[in-house]
């Protein structure tokens, strides 16, 4: 991946400078196209990024928020009803015990990954181009993980007892918890992932909050003053700050790999044919990155238009992400192939049948949606003409999201639907309530994201400033 991205890692154009600190190789090469367009000065960056926060919300924003809230309300009803009435209000049965619930869980966890990847992994790789998208990508991560965490809770038969999954002293013995259960690993993985992402995100926000504080007056000044922890941008703080960011990045990097690997063990460690396979962890991680980047693309394409960030989220960023998409998409394709091969090569009758059933069983349509959206569609991005059209990229990114959702659906439902004893073979058809929960999750996600765009700097100002090309380099005698 690093190799792939090196190409994109161009330093801002500037004359070689005695005081310029050393940069990773490849960055010295002057690039024709700057990371940030429009030859911005530092204060312009500040003004541009703060502008959306300081002007009145547009009609488009209000419309979007209302739509998101409506979805959220639908979800609240669905979850409320299901919690009050029973899981029976879902389309599950004795054979298919998980359907939309866990599909959505895995989907959202996957979405989260891009954020961490961009902010942590690309930071370690010194990928300068990340600076203008990492903030919103991280926000996306946090909101996505929130949505994800929702599902394991509501999918329980008795969600009000969800806290039993934590090991706390109790009057039952104490009866602790089953550390051997992959579901329990999830609990720890997801909560850790959420905590670290949140810290990373907020730490990143502090300097920019200080900027807002110093621009604002009245109650906003008080608020941002409180939130910015009394940041004054002194050199000593900066140096510790950068170290802390590096540490968090290097912690988040293994985390991002571990989280989806752990999620994959929900399936990999069980006996269900189609689940019980060792390829799942890498398969899931790369899928997560893939879907995550697709979601980032979707959001960024909207944002740069709506928030007028074309100069910050430039065509170059979009293309960088397109390349990531092609790359990861291809690996996902490889994973699908590997999975089929292992099934065939295993000679295990149940395993073989599970995949025969995926390819041309009663739910084959889901499998083929997944393959076409995840493997074939992204390959279009090889074509310069496709990359040229933002609309095309937007559509592709959406299709990838659809495809990745179906990947989880196929893995979960189609594997469960027909396992060992033909007498128990069954099918699955979701109910309105399940759709409600799903729509609600999207509602929650977009609501949070819209509020974020409105009240917090969507672009990390101080980081963008570090990669700015100075308007007019000074001469020092």
């Amino acid at each position, binding site marked *: 991946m690093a190799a792939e991205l090196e190409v994109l890692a161009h330093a801002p154009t500037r004359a070689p400078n005695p005081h310029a600190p050393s940069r990773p190789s490849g960055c010295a090469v002057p690039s024709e196209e700057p990371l940030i367009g429009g030859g911005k000065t530092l204060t312009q960056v500040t003004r541009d990024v703060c502008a959306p926060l300081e002007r009145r919300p547009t009609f488009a924003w209000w419309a979007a928020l209302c739509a998101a809230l409506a979805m959220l309300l639908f979800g609240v009803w669905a979850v409320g009803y299901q919690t009050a009435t029973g899981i029976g209000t879902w389309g599950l049965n004795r054979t298919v015990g998980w359907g939309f619930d866990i599909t959505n869980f895995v989907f959202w966890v996957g979405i989260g990954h891009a954020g961490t990847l961009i902010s942590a992994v690309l930071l370690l790789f010194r990928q300068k181009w990340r600076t203008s998208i990492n903030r919103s990508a991280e926000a996306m991560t946090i909101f996505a993980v929130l949505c994800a965490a929702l599902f394991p809770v509501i999918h*329980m038969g008795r969600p009000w007892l969800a806290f039993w999954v934590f090991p706390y002293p109790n009057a039952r013995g104490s009866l602790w918890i089953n550390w051997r259960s992959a579901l329990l690993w999830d609990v720890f993985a997801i909560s850790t992932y959420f905590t670290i992402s949140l810290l990373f995100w907020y730490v990143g926000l502090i300097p920019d909050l200080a900027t807002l504080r110093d621009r604002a007056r009245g109650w906003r000044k008080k608020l941002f003053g409180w939130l910015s922890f009394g940041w004054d941008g002194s050199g000593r703080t900066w140096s510790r700050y950068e170290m802390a960011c590096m540490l968090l990045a290097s912690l988040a990097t293994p985390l991002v790999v571990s989280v989806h690997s752990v999620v994959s063990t929900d399936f990999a460690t069980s006996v269900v044919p189609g689940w019980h396979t060792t390829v799942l962890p890498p398969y899931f991680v790369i899928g997560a990155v893939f879907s995550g980047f697709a979601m980032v693309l979707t959001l960024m394409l909207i944002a740069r238009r709506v928030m007028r960030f074309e100069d910050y989220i430039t065509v170059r960023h979009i293309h960088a992400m397109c390349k990531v998409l092609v790359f990861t998409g291809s690996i996902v394709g490889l994973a699908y192939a590997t999975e089929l091969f292992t099934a065939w090569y295993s000679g295990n009758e149940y395993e073989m049948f599970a995949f025969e059933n995926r390819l041309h069983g009663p739910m084959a349509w889901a499998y083929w949606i997944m393959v076409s959206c995840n493997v074939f569609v992204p390959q279009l991005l090889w074509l310069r003409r496709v990359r040229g059209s933002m609309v095309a990229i937007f559509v592709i990114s959406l299709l990838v999201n659809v495809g990745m959702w179906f990947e989880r659906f196929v893995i979960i439902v189609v594997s469960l639907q027909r396992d060992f004893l033909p007498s128990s073979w069954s099918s699955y058809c979701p109910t309105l309530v399940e759709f409600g929960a799903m729509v609600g999750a999207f509602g929650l996600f977009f609501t949070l994201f819209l509020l974020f765009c409105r009240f917090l700097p969507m672009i990390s100002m101080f980081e963008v400033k570090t990669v700015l090309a100075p308007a007019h380099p000074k001469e020092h005698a």
Partner: protein
Amino acid sequence: METHDDNLLLPFEDTTSSRRSFLRTVGFGIASAAMAGCSRGPVRYVVPSLAPSPEILPGRAYWIATTCGACSAGCGVLAKCRDGRPIKLEGNRAHPASLGGLCAVGQASVLSLYDSMRLDGARRGGASASFEDCDRELTRIFAELERSGGRVRLLTGSVHSPSTRAAIARFVARFADGRHVSYDPLPASATLTAYELLFGRRLLPSPQFERARTILAFDADFLGTWISPVEFGAAYTRGRELAPGAKFRHIQLESRLSLTGSRADERVLLAPWETAPALAGLCAELERLAGLPSRLAQLGATPRSERIAALAHEVWASRGASLVLCGIDELESQLLCAYANELLGNHGATLDLARPSQRRLGDERALGELAAELDAGSVDALVIAGVNPAYDLGGRLALARAKHVIVASEALDETAVAAGWVCPAPHALEAWDDGEPREGLFVLTQPTVPALRSTRSLRASLARWSGDARSDRDLVRAHWRSEIFPRSGESDFDLFFERALQAGFVELEPRARRSLAFRPDALAQLAPRAQSPAPGALALVLYAKVGLLDGRHAHNPWLQELSDPVTKIAWDNYACLAPTTAATLGIGEGDVVRVHTEQGAIELPAHLQSGQHEGVVAVALGYGRVGTGRFARVGPHWLDAQPTVASDGVVGVHAGPLVVWGSAGRSFAGAPARLDRLARNVSLACTQDYHSLELPAALASHGHEVRDAVRSTSHAEHAADPHAVARSKHPVADQDLWPDDHRGERRWGMTIDLARCTGCSACVIACQAENNVPVVGKDEVLRHREMSWIRIDRYYQGEGEELRTLHQPMLCQHCAHAPCESVCPVLATVHSAEGLNQQIYNRCVGTRYCSNTCPYKVRRFNWFDYPHEDALANQALNPDVTVRSRGVMEKCSFCVQRIQEAKARASVEGRALADGDVQLACQQSCPANAIVFGDLENPSSRVSASASDPRAYTLLEELNVQPSIRYLAHVHSGRSTKKESGHGG
């Protein structure tokens, strides 16, 4: 029970000693029966009892020996009572007929006791009235009729209760024109008539299945619904068992796939109109073999002649040890059937004429005459008891034409609703009664609970109307004292009667009769002809279904939700069609069809049934009972819930009106029928979506076309290599990743013998009763959320005549390496030191992860809070088992409550737990004794022995989850099919 008699309260010394000796001599079943027998507690002392009796402790179960009243078979049961009420029925091991088995219907009958719709108190002209008033009036009416010589008719089902028959005789004798007419909703009248014609006595011979080596059954569903399935099933299985090598053949000649047919070694598809000619052909062939001149004058062409001839040779080879049975109640066939048995010398050998069965005594001709009298309006008083003619006979009887109609029924059924008087009858579990299901075998029924409703038996009513105010118990005792006791040769009646109560039965030598001589004249004028219905028409076959039988149990939700052993469909009846026929008619599963016959038309969904004759449409009786709209509210209520039945509707469709009335009586098979496909489609609640062990051809990879879940082999192959059938396709290396440090001193295990299991589903209902399994309703079953802890998987192999049916009881396998346990995040399912896979309801948070990983899919999730509003029905709940709440997983617990109880009992008695102390509900009820339970660690236990049988295999062994259940492969003596035992040929 509205009268009290004081002699009951007198101390009863003698029994204590007798009980002690009794306890010493016999096992727990009878011992507890004995306690119950002499306690007489529940009749009068309702727990908590003021005078504590040694047997009845609150919270401790006690057992009362009595007789099952669910059908006329009269199986012996021990009623398990808690706190003064019965909660479970178990077969009485000592009973000579049922031998400890109890069918699904019997198991379910305990729930009917708590049916809130049972009648309470007498009714007069549609309004409730007091027994006193009714009695006063009726006594007067009958007195008048006695004087005026009016026409009094008494219409009942088969009554084999000696005391009741005596009471009826006394009552009828009062009137110049009094007559007792009895009929059976599922008649065997033709058989009785056939024997009357051929042997000079109206009797129903008792088949001795365990003596038969070759069985030819013509449409006789003797394992499912025919006369006495539990007794027959037990004997049949023992017959199969005798000398494993010894040849046992069961050939079923039938038009539809019956439960019995599904167990046959070979099936011959025979349309109803072909039965008589086929039997004739069989007899002719047998005559030839016997070297006798043909008695069958004009013989038509024999259908399937060479097959029939072959069968004749086969059955001739085992003459004297063979059985020819015919389940079609039609004189010609029955005469021929009896003749065949005579030719084979089966009478007296495998067909007991000395101890004939009394379970079917109905006389169709008498019924016809009664119908005529009613049409003529010449009946003054009609007393109806124990039957529901308005439903059974499809309204053929003009009951309204009788001047006075008095009905003794348990509920306000189709007949009672129209009657002038209703004197409700008690449920068998709250009544005194006796019976003689087969001559010489006398059974007793005693109350297990104080009468829940104000009711009175027919016997008491008749006595009362004749001015005899004695209570039921006294009438029974009196009859036994005068009629039965003298034959016992014992000295002390009280002791004799108490013993009888303790055991639930006495067996006496049947009355000596002159031996019956065979008189073949009746055969001369037989002219069996195969007249197939007009082209395009199908032959309608009306059959009884396991569970609902003739419909008398249609108000029992357990039986309504019991998925049919063959079709696996619950909650509805349907028109069964052979798939090919359906294809030609363009009818699909669930398409609603209108079935026209000369009698009328009914509309019901079609079901494509493998192994059925192409020229036949089969419809189950017993549905469409009035009042079954009550089940509209069964199951959970939520926004997308479909009611099981429209609240103004009924469950299923009543096929009774299509029964053909002939001079000889009703005919249930063969009426020509036409089918019209309607535009509607009804989804049938089938618990199984996929019906074969063969994978869909498109998805099967080479060499893995068949799953070997159910293994079966032919006698020949088994003899060649006994271990072949159990040999695993993928043997597992006997080593683990980690040391097995969990070996307890005991490991509970089970074996299920697929060669014995008939798929009768008794275990399913037994488990439901024992473990408080809720009824969820049709919609939930359609959504595949049935809750039964034990199910019976049914697989088909082949089609048409070659069809082989496999039954496999499926329950939690209690794996030593249970996949479900390691995935539960909160330790809600863990392993006990005795090898039980435990489910802890109050710890479960309901992730359903365990169910997903269960390879056997035996875990059941509480999708909703299932309704338990009916306080009366809740009386049937087992207090020892938690009623699960919403959102938790549940599954078979190996009846852990029984294990604990047995342990407690052992420790109280200061002894170690012995093999066989623990009897699981499913195991106990199994008429075929297919289930063995015990300690696998104990090498001398029965289960260990059975687990070491060469046929024993563990299901999905290759997963190495190490189940505690072994299946014993089925061994049949049919042709061995290619796909045999799932080893992919």
